[in-house]
Protein backbone atom coordinates (compact mmCIF):
# COMPACT_ATOMS: atom_id res chain seq x y z
CA UNK A 1 0.00 0.00 0.00
CA UNK A 2 1.59 3.21 -1.14
CA UNK A 3 -0.40 5.42 1.23
CA UNK A 4 1.28 4.08 4.33
CA UNK A 5 4.34 6.32 4.27
CA UNK A 6 2.19 9.37 3.73
CA UNK A 7 -0.02 8.32 6.64
CA UNK A 8 2.93 7.98 8.95
CA UNK A 9 4.29 11.37 7.99
CA UNK A 10 0.93 12.98 8.55
CA UNK A 11 0.68 11.75 12.10
CA UNK A 12 2.42 14.69 13.70
CA UNK A 13 -0.25 17.08 12.55
CA UNK A 14 -2.94 14.93 14.10
CA UNK A 15 -4.85 15.84 17.26
CA UNK A 16 -4.20 12.65 19.12
CA UNK A 17 -0.51 13.31 19.11
CA UNK A 18 0.64 11.24 22.02
CA UNK A 19 -0.60 7.90 20.72
CA UNK A 20 -0.04 8.55 17.05
CA UNK A 21 3.51 9.81 17.37
CA UNK A 22 4.83 6.32 17.95
CA UNK A 23 6.31 4.87 14.81
CA UNK A 24 5.07 1.36 14.28
CA UNK A 25 6.52 -0.77 11.53
CA UNK A 26 5.02 -4.03 10.29
CA UNK A 27 7.72 -6.10 8.62
CA UNK A 28 6.55 -6.74 5.06
CA UNK A 29 8.48 -9.70 3.65
CA UNK A 30 5.75 -11.22 1.52
CA UNK A 31 4.44 -13.74 4.04
CA UNK A 32 1.06 -13.07 5.43
CA UNK A 33 -2.08 -11.14 5.96
CA UNK A 34 -0.47 -7.86 6.94
CA UNK A 35 -3.41 -5.75 5.82
CA UNK A 36 -5.47 -7.03 8.77
CA UNK A 37 -2.75 -6.07 11.25
CA UNK A 38 -2.43 -2.62 9.71
CA UNK A 39 -6.19 -2.11 10.02
CA UNK A 40 -6.21 -3.40 13.62
CA UNK A 41 -3.57 -0.81 14.56
CA UNK A 42 -5.65 1.79 12.74
CA UNK A 43 -8.73 0.85 14.80
CA UNK A 44 -6.66 1.67 17.90
CA UNK A 45 -6.16 5.19 16.57
CA UNK A 46 -2.56 4.68 15.46
CA UNK A 47 -0.93 4.10 12.08
CA UNK A 48 1.56 1.47 11.04
CA UNK A 49 4.02 1.51 8.20
CA UNK A 50 4.67 -1.60 6.12
CA UNK A 51 8.34 -2.01 5.28
CA UNK A 52 11.10 -4.49 4.55
CA UNK A 53 13.79 -1.79 4.76
CA UNK A 54 16.31 -2.61 7.50
CA UNK A 55 16.95 1.05 8.35
CA UNK A 56 13.24 1.90 8.69
CA UNK A 57 12.69 -1.21 10.81
CA UNK A 58 15.66 -0.41 13.06
CA UNK A 59 14.45 3.16 13.57
CA UNK A 60 10.89 2.19 14.58
CA UNK A 61 9.62 2.45 18.15
CA UNK A 62 7.64 -0.77 17.78
CA UNK A 63 8.10 -3.59 15.31
CA UNK A 64 5.47 -6.17 14.39
CA UNK A 65 6.71 -9.34 12.72
CA UNK A 66 3.74 -11.13 11.10
CA UNK A 67 3.62 -14.34 9.15
CA UNK A 68 1.15 -16.74 7.63
CA UNK A 69 2.00 -19.73 5.48
CA UNK A 70 4.83 -22.22 5.41
CA UNK A 71 7.87 -21.84 7.71
CA UNK A 72 10.81 -22.78 5.48
CA UNK A 73 9.69 -20.61 2.55
CA UNK A 74 9.01 -17.67 4.88
CA UNK A 75 12.49 -18.15 6.38
CA UNK A 76 13.99 -18.15 2.88
CA UNK A 77 12.29 -14.82 2.23
CA UNK A 78 13.82 -13.39 5.42
CA UNK A 79 17.27 -14.63 4.43
CA UNK A 80 16.90 -13.26 0.88
CA UNK A 81 16.19 -9.78 2.26
CA UNK A 82 18.83 -9.99 5.02
CA UNK A 83 16.13 -9.51 7.65
CA UNK A 84 17.19 -12.73 9.37
CA UNK A 85 20.23 -10.78 10.59
CA UNK A 86 18.34 -7.58 11.37
CA UNK A 87 15.46 -8.88 13.50
CA UNK A 88 17.46 -10.61 16.29
CA UNK A 89 19.51 -7.40 16.77
CA UNK A 90 16.50 -5.13 17.31
CA UNK A 91 16.41 -3.31 20.65
CA UNK A 92 12.85 -1.94 20.64
CA UNK A 93 9.77 -4.06 21.51
CA UNK A 94 9.14 -6.62 18.74
CA UNK A 95 5.91 -8.63 18.46
CA UNK A 96 5.94 -11.79 16.36
CA UNK A 97 2.50 -13.03 15.35
CA UNK A 98 1.65 -16.65 14.42
CA UNK A 99 4.33 -17.83 11.97
CA UNK A 100 6.32 -14.72 12.95
CA UNK A 101 6.50 -16.07 16.50
CA UNK A 102 7.44 -19.54 15.25
CA UNK A 103 10.27 -18.14 13.11
CA UNK A 104 11.65 -16.40 16.22
CA UNK A 105 12.31 -19.88 17.71
CA UNK A 106 15.41 -22.02 17.15
CA UNK A 107 13.98 -24.40 14.58
CA UNK A 108 10.72 -25.49 12.96
CA UNK A 109 9.71 -28.99 12.00
CA UNK A 110 7.73 -27.40 9.16
CA UNK A 111 10.13 -27.69 6.22
CA UNK A 112 12.89 -28.47 8.76
CA UNK A 113 14.08 -24.90 8.83
CA UNK A 114 16.37 -23.06 11.18
CA UNK A 115 14.72 -20.08 12.87
CA UNK A 116 16.00 -16.76 14.19
CA UNK A 117 17.02 -18.35 17.50
CA UNK A 118 15.50 -15.68 19.74
CA UNK A 119 13.33 -18.07 21.75
CA UNK A 120 15.21 -21.17 22.84
CA UNK A 121 12.65 -23.73 21.72
CA UNK A 122 11.93 -25.93 18.67
CA UNK A 123 8.58 -25.72 16.87
CA UNK A 124 6.83 -29.09 16.42
CA UNK A 125 3.76 -30.44 14.62
CA UNK A 126 0.55 -31.35 16.46
CA UNK A 127 -0.03 -35.11 16.63
CA UNK A 128 -2.75 -36.96 14.72
CA UNK A 129 -4.75 -37.32 17.92
CA UNK A 130 -6.30 -33.92 17.17
CA UNK A 131 -7.54 -32.23 14.01
CA UNK A 132 -4.79 -30.33 12.26
CA UNK A 133 -4.78 -27.35 11.74
CA UNK A 134 -6.25 -26.14 14.99
CA UNK A 135 -8.71 -23.50 13.80
CA UNK A 136 -10.74 -21.37 16.16
CA UNK A 137 -10.94 -19.76 19.57
CA UNK A 138 -9.04 -21.30 22.45
CA UNK A 139 -8.20 -20.12 25.96
CA UNK A 140 -4.98 -18.66 27.34
CA UNK A 141 -3.88 -19.42 30.89
CA UNK A 142 -0.85 -18.72 33.11
CA UNK A 143 -0.54 -15.20 31.69
CA UNK A 144 2.82 -13.79 32.70
CA UNK A 145 3.53 -10.46 31.06
CA UNK A 146 2.47 -6.83 30.88
CA UNK A 147 1.36 -7.76 27.36
CA UNK A 148 -1.71 -9.30 29.04
CA UNK A 149 -2.63 -6.36 31.30
CA UNK A 150 -6.40 -6.17 31.52
CA UNK A 151 -6.81 -9.59 29.87
CA UNK A 152 -8.35 -12.21 32.11
CA UNK A 153 -7.04 -15.70 32.64
CA UNK A 154 -8.84 -18.11 30.26
CA UNK A 155 -9.56 -15.35 27.76
CA UNK A 156 -10.26 -16.58 24.22
CA UNK A 157 -8.01 -15.76 21.29
CA UNK A 158 -8.27 -16.84 17.65
CA UNK A 159 -5.69 -19.39 16.49
CA UNK A 160 -4.96 -21.08 13.17
CA UNK A 161 -1.92 -23.35 13.17
CA UNK A 162 -0.58 -26.85 12.63
CA UNK A 163 2.74 -26.39 14.48
CA UNK A 164 3.34 -25.20 18.05
CA UNK A 165 6.08 -24.10 20.41
CA UNK A 166 6.31 -26.42 23.43
CA UNK A 167 6.44 -25.00 26.96
CA UNK A 168 9.83 -23.48 27.79
CA UNK A 169 11.52 -20.84 29.98
CA UNK A 170 10.20 -18.07 27.71
CA UNK A 171 6.52 -19.15 27.94
CA UNK A 172 4.21 -16.32 29.03
CA UNK A 173 0.86 -17.92 28.12
CA UNK A 174 -0.32 -21.52 27.86
CA UNK A 175 -2.97 -23.04 25.61
CA UNK A 176 -4.11 -26.64 25.52
CA UNK A 177 -4.68 -28.47 22.24
CA UNK A 178 -3.32 -31.98 21.98
CA UNK A 179 -0.93 -30.91 24.77
CA UNK A 180 -0.16 -27.77 26.74
CA UNK A 181 1.98 -25.47 24.60
CA UNK A 182 3.25 -21.88 24.49
CA UNK A 183 0.63 -19.56 23.03
CA UNK A 184 2.91 -16.62 23.86
CA UNK A 185 6.65 -16.23 24.43
CA UNK A 186 8.85 -13.44 25.72
CA UNK A 187 12.57 -12.86 25.91
CA UNK A 188 13.96 -9.41 26.70
CA UNK A 189 12.39 -7.01 24.17
CA UNK A 190 11.00 -9.84 22.02
CA UNK A 191 7.38 -10.99 22.30
CA UNK A 192 5.69 -13.69 20.28
CA UNK A 193 2.04 -14.73 20.15
CA UNK A 194 0.71 -17.80 18.39
CA UNK A 195 -2.82 -16.37 18.18
CA UNK A 196 -3.95 -13.54 15.93
CA UNK A 197 -4.62 -10.47 18.12
CA UNK A 198 -5.79 -8.60 15.01
CA UNK A 199 -8.60 -11.16 14.65
CA UNK A 200 -9.32 -11.81 18.33
CA UNK A 201 -12.09 -9.29 18.91
CA UNK A 202 -11.82 -7.00 21.97
CA UNK A 203 -9.27 -9.15 23.81
CA UNK A 204 -6.93 -8.99 20.83
CA UNK A 205 -7.32 -5.23 20.68
CA UNK A 206 -6.34 -4.91 24.34
CA UNK A 207 -3.22 -6.97 23.69
CA UNK A 208 -2.18 -4.87 20.70
CA UNK A 209 -2.82 -1.71 22.70
CA UNK A 210 -0.65 -3.09 25.52
CA UNK A 211 2.13 -3.79 23.06
CA UNK A 212 1.95 -0.28 21.63
CA UNK A 213 2.14 1.13 25.15
CA UNK A 214 5.22 -0.91 26.20
Amino acid sequence: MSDTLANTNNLKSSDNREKKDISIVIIDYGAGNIQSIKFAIQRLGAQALLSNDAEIIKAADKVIFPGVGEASSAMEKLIATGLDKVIPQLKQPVLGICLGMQLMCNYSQEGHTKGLGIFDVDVLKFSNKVKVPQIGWNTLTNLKSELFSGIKNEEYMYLVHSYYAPLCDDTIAITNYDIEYSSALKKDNFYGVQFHPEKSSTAGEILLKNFLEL
Partner: protein
Amino acid sequence: MLTKRIIPCLDIKNGRTVKGVNFIDLRDAGDPVELAALYAKNGADELVFLDISATEERRKTLADLVLHVSEKVNIPFTVGGGISSVEDVDILLKCGADKVSINSSAVKNPELINKLSAKFGSQCVVVAIDAKQIDGNWKVHLVGGKVPTELDLFEWAKEVEKRGAGEILFTSMDHDGTKNGFANKALAKLSTELNIPIIASGGAGNNQHFIDTFVEGKSDAALAASVFHFKEIEINDLKAELKAHDIPVRL
Protein backbone atom coordinates in the same frame (compact mmCIF):
# COMPACT_ATOMS: atom_id res chain seq x y z
CA MET B 1 -10.23 -25.73 25.27
CA LEU B 2 -10.86 -25.13 21.58
CA THR B 3 -14.43 -23.93 21.18
CA LYS B 4 -17.12 -24.75 18.63
CA ARG B 5 -17.65 -21.89 16.21
CA ILE B 6 -20.86 -20.14 15.15
CA ILE B 7 -20.58 -18.66 11.66
CA PRO B 8 -23.19 -16.39 10.04
CA CYS B 9 -23.06 -16.46 6.24
CA LEU B 10 -23.74 -13.33 4.20
CA ASP B 11 -24.73 -13.69 0.56
CA ILE B 12 -23.29 -10.85 -1.48
CA LYS B 13 -24.35 -9.54 -4.86
CA ASN B 14 -22.56 -6.59 -6.42
CA GLY B 15 -21.13 -5.61 -3.04
CA ARG B 16 -24.46 -5.75 -1.18
CA THR B 17 -26.10 -8.36 1.04
CA VAL B 18 -28.89 -10.07 -0.84
CA LYS B 19 -30.83 -12.35 1.43
CA GLY B 20 -33.44 -10.22 3.12
CA VAL B 21 -32.18 -9.14 6.46
CA ASN B 22 -34.30 -7.88 9.29
CA PHE B 23 -32.14 -5.72 11.47
CA ILE B 24 -34.02 -2.69 12.71
CA ASP B 25 -30.91 -1.42 14.45
CA LEU B 26 -28.95 -1.21 11.21
CA ARG B 27 -28.90 1.96 9.21
CA ASP B 28 -28.40 -0.01 6.03
CA ALA B 29 -29.15 -3.71 6.18
CA GLY B 30 -27.77 -4.12 2.68
CA ASP B 31 -24.33 -2.95 3.75
CA PRO B 32 -22.28 -6.09 4.36
CA VAL B 33 -19.65 -4.21 6.35
CA GLU B 34 -22.14 -2.85 8.84
CA LEU B 35 -23.87 -6.20 9.17
CA ALA B 36 -20.53 -7.98 9.64
CA ALA B 37 -19.45 -5.57 12.37
CA LEU B 38 -22.77 -6.10 14.16
CA TYR B 39 -22.37 -9.89 14.02
CA ALA B 40 -18.83 -9.59 15.35
CA LYS B 41 -20.11 -7.50 18.24
CA ASN B 42 -22.94 -9.95 18.95
CA GLY B 43 -20.72 -12.99 19.41
CA ALA B 44 -20.16 -14.48 15.95
CA ASP B 45 -16.88 -16.40 15.93
CA GLU B 46 -16.24 -16.01 12.22
CA LEU B 47 -18.04 -14.80 9.12
CA VAL B 48 -18.45 -16.16 5.62
CA PHE B 49 -19.13 -13.92 2.62
CA LEU B 50 -20.50 -15.78 -0.36
CA ASP B 51 -20.38 -13.72 -3.53
CA ILE B 52 -23.09 -14.58 -6.06
CA SER B 53 -22.56 -11.69 -8.49
CA ALA B 54 -22.13 -12.50 -12.12
CA THR B 55 -20.95 -9.19 -13.53
CA GLU B 56 -17.73 -8.32 -15.30
CA GLU B 57 -16.65 -6.14 -12.38
CA ARG B 58 -17.28 -8.77 -9.74
CA ARG B 59 -13.63 -9.39 -8.92
CA LYS B 60 -12.91 -5.75 -8.20
CA THR B 61 -16.17 -5.22 -6.30
CA LEU B 62 -15.41 -8.24 -4.14
CA ALA B 63 -11.83 -7.13 -3.47
CA ASP B 64 -13.11 -3.70 -2.42
CA LEU B 65 -15.64 -5.29 -0.11
CA VAL B 66 -12.99 -7.51 1.48
CA LEU B 67 -10.81 -4.49 2.10
CA HIS B 68 -13.68 -2.64 3.80
CA VAL B 69 -14.63 -5.63 5.94
CA SER B 70 -11.01 -6.10 6.97
CA GLU B 71 -10.82 -2.45 7.94
CA LYS B 72 -13.83 -2.60 10.27
CA VAL B 73 -14.21 -6.16 11.53
CA ASN B 74 -12.05 -7.72 14.26
CA ILE B 75 -12.91 -11.40 13.78
CA PRO B 76 -11.79 -13.80 11.03
CA PHE B 77 -13.71 -14.10 7.78
CA THR B 78 -13.82 -16.34 4.73
CA VAL B 79 -14.67 -15.28 1.20
CA GLY B 80 -16.18 -17.61 -1.39
CA GLY B 81 -17.97 -17.56 -4.72
CA GLY B 82 -16.47 -17.77 -8.17
CA ILE B 83 -12.86 -18.10 -7.00
CA SER B 84 -10.99 -20.16 -9.56
CA SER B 85 -7.32 -19.17 -9.65
CA VAL B 86 -4.24 -18.56 -7.54
CA GLU B 87 -4.40 -14.94 -8.64
CA ASP B 88 -8.01 -14.53 -7.36
CA VAL B 89 -6.93 -15.83 -3.98
CA ASP B 90 -3.80 -13.70 -3.85
CA ILE B 91 -5.86 -10.53 -4.28
CA LEU B 92 -8.47 -11.49 -1.66
CA LEU B 93 -5.86 -12.46 0.94
CA LYS B 94 -3.91 -9.27 0.30
CA CYS B 95 -7.10 -7.29 0.87
CA GLY B 96 -7.41 -8.93 4.28
CA ALA B 97 -9.50 -12.10 3.89
CA ASP B 98 -8.35 -14.79 6.31
CA LYS B 99 -9.53 -17.73 4.24
CA VAL B 100 -11.05 -18.39 0.87
CA SER B 101 -13.60 -21.01 0.01
CA ILE B 102 -13.56 -22.84 -3.31
CA ASN B 103 -16.25 -25.17 -4.56
CA SER B 104 -16.94 -25.91 -8.24
CA SER B 105 -13.46 -24.79 -9.28
CA ALA B 106 -11.97 -27.43 -6.98
CA VAL B 107 -14.07 -30.16 -8.57
CA LYS B 108 -13.21 -29.02 -12.10
CA ASN B 109 -9.54 -28.52 -11.26
CA PRO B 110 -8.56 -30.42 -8.09
CA GLU B 111 -4.92 -29.38 -8.55
CA LEU B 112 -6.01 -25.86 -7.54
CA ILE B 113 -6.27 -27.08 -3.93
CA ASN B 114 -2.63 -28.23 -4.00
CA LYS B 115 -1.49 -24.97 -5.56
CA LEU B 116 -3.35 -22.80 -3.06
CA SER B 117 -2.20 -24.70 0.00
CA ALA B 118 1.40 -24.73 -1.22
CA LYS B 119 1.41 -21.00 -1.91
CA PHE B 120 -0.72 -19.63 0.93
CA GLY B 121 -0.83 -22.47 3.49
CA SER B 122 -3.64 -24.93 4.05
CA GLN B 123 -5.00 -22.82 6.92
CA CYS B 124 -6.59 -20.41 4.44
CA VAL B 125 -8.03 -22.99 2.02
CA VAL B 126 -11.62 -23.99 2.74
CA VAL B 127 -13.17 -26.43 0.31
CA ALA B 128 -16.95 -26.09 0.18
CA ILE B 129 -18.83 -29.22 -0.80
CA ASP B 130 -22.53 -29.25 -1.70
CA ALA B 131 -24.04 -32.72 -1.72
CA LYS B 132 -27.35 -34.52 -1.66
CA GLN B 133 -28.42 -38.12 -1.40
CA ILE B 134 -29.26 -39.99 -4.57
CA ASP B 135 -30.50 -43.55 -3.97
CA GLY B 136 -29.02 -43.40 -0.49
CA ASN B 137 -25.57 -42.24 -1.65
CA TRP B 138 -24.22 -38.77 -0.98
CA LYS B 139 -23.26 -37.24 -4.33
CA VAL B 140 -21.39 -33.98 -4.79
CA HIS B 141 -23.32 -31.29 -6.68
CA LEU B 142 -22.14 -28.14 -8.43
CA VAL B 143 -23.57 -24.69 -9.17
CA GLY B 144 -25.29 -24.29 -5.83
CA GLY B 145 -26.50 -27.87 -5.87
CA LYS B 146 -28.08 -27.77 -9.32
CA VAL B 147 -25.66 -29.96 -11.25
CA PRO B 148 -25.01 -33.51 -10.00
CA THR B 149 -21.61 -35.14 -10.38
CA GLU B 150 -20.46 -38.72 -10.04
CA LEU B 151 -18.29 -37.82 -7.06
CA ASP B 152 -19.03 -39.50 -3.74
CA LEU B 153 -19.07 -36.99 -0.87
CA PHE B 154 -16.77 -38.97 1.42
CA GLU B 155 -14.25 -39.90 -1.28
CA TRP B 156 -14.11 -36.31 -2.50
CA ALA B 157 -13.73 -35.01 1.05
CA LYS B 158 -10.79 -37.34 1.65
CA GLU B 159 -9.21 -36.25 -1.60
CA VAL B 160 -9.47 -32.54 -0.78
CA GLU B 161 -7.91 -33.20 2.63
CA LYS B 162 -5.05 -35.07 0.97
CA ARG B 163 -4.56 -32.23 -1.51
CA GLY B 164 -4.12 -29.73 1.31
CA ALA B 165 -7.51 -28.26 2.25
CA GLY B 166 -7.43 -26.84 5.78
CA GLU B 167 -11.15 -27.11 6.38
CA ILE B 168 -14.32 -28.47 4.77
CA LEU B 169 -17.60 -26.58 4.59
CA PHE B 170 -20.23 -29.23 3.94
CA THR B 171 -23.70 -28.14 2.85
CA SER B 172 -26.40 -30.76 2.63
CA MET B 173 -28.73 -29.77 -0.22
CA ASP B 174 -31.29 -32.11 1.31
CA HIS B 175 -31.34 -30.05 4.50
CA ASP B 176 -30.60 -26.54 3.23
CA GLY B 177 -33.61 -24.26 3.68
CA THR B 178 -35.67 -26.87 5.55
CA LYS B 179 -34.93 -25.58 9.06
CA ASN B 180 -35.16 -29.20 10.19
CA GLY B 181 -31.60 -29.62 11.42
CA PHE B 182 -28.19 -30.37 9.94
CA ALA B 183 -27.14 -33.59 8.14
CA ASN B 184 -25.59 -34.98 11.30
CA LYS B 185 -24.98 -38.57 10.20
CA ALA B 186 -22.97 -37.50 7.18
CA LEU B 187 -21.23 -34.79 9.22
CA ALA B 188 -20.21 -37.27 11.93
CA LYS B 189 -18.82 -39.61 9.27
CA LEU B 190 -16.81 -36.78 7.72
CA SER B 191 -15.55 -35.64 11.10
CA THR B 192 -14.49 -39.14 12.09
CA GLU B 193 -12.88 -40.14 8.81
CA LEU B 194 -11.04 -36.86 8.22
CA ASN B 195 -8.52 -35.05 10.38
CA ILE B 196 -9.37 -31.44 9.43
CA PRO B 197 -12.16 -29.27 10.86
CA ILE B 198 -15.66 -29.70 9.41
CA ILE B 199 -18.14 -26.82 9.17
CA ALA B 200 -21.80 -27.88 9.11
CA SER B 201 -24.14 -25.98 6.79
CA GLY B 202 -27.75 -26.37 5.75
CA GLY B 203 -30.78 -26.96 7.94
CA ALA B 204 -30.38 -24.68 10.96
CA GLY B 205 -33.80 -23.78 12.38
CA ASN B 206 -33.44 -23.60 16.15
CA ASN B 207 -30.92 -23.85 19.00
CA GLN B 208 -31.39 -27.59 19.38
CA HIS B 209 -30.17 -28.10 15.81
CA PHE B 210 -26.85 -26.52 16.75
CA ILE B 211 -26.57 -28.66 19.89
CA ASP B 212 -27.28 -31.73 17.77
CA THR B 213 -24.72 -30.92 15.10
CA PHE B 214 -21.98 -30.37 17.66
CA VAL B 215 -22.85 -33.50 19.67
CA GLU B 216 -24.23 -36.02 17.15
CA GLY B 217 -22.69 -34.47 14.04
CA LYS B 218 -19.29 -33.96 15.71
CA SER B 219 -19.03 -30.69 13.73
CA ASP B 220 -16.31 -28.21 14.57
CA ALA B 221 -18.34 -25.20 13.46
CA ALA B 222 -21.86 -24.48 12.27
CA LEU B 223 -22.89 -22.01 9.60
CA ALA B 224 -26.30 -20.47 9.01
CA ALA B 225 -27.79 -17.48 7.24
CA SER B 226 -31.50 -16.71 7.51
CA VAL B 227 -32.03 -17.74 11.15
CA PHE B 228 -29.44 -15.14 12.10
CA HIS B 229 -30.44 -12.51 9.53
CA PHE B 230 -34.09 -12.66 10.62
CA LYS B 231 -33.13 -12.78 14.30
CA GLU B 232 -34.91 -16.08 14.78
CA ILE B 233 -31.76 -17.01 16.66
CA GLU B 234 -29.62 -14.51 18.59
CA ILE B 235 -26.02 -15.67 18.59
CA ASN B 236 -25.35 -14.82 22.24
CA ASP B 237 -28.49 -16.68 23.38
CA LEU B 238 -27.54 -19.64 21.23
CA LYS B 239 -24.05 -19.73 22.71
CA ALA B 240 -25.39 -19.50 26.26
CA GLU B 241 -27.60 -22.50 25.55
CA LEU B 242 -24.72 -24.43 23.99
CA LYS B 243 -22.66 -23.72 27.09
CA ALA B 244 -25.49 -24.97 29.30
CA HIS B 245 -25.22 -28.22 27.35
CA ASP B 246 -21.47 -28.44 28.09
CA ILE B 247 -20.52 -27.55 24.53
CA PRO B 248 -17.40 -25.33 24.63
CA VAL B 249 -18.12 -21.88 23.18
CA ARG B 250 -16.56 -18.44 23.44
CA LEU B 251 -18.84 -16.21 25.49
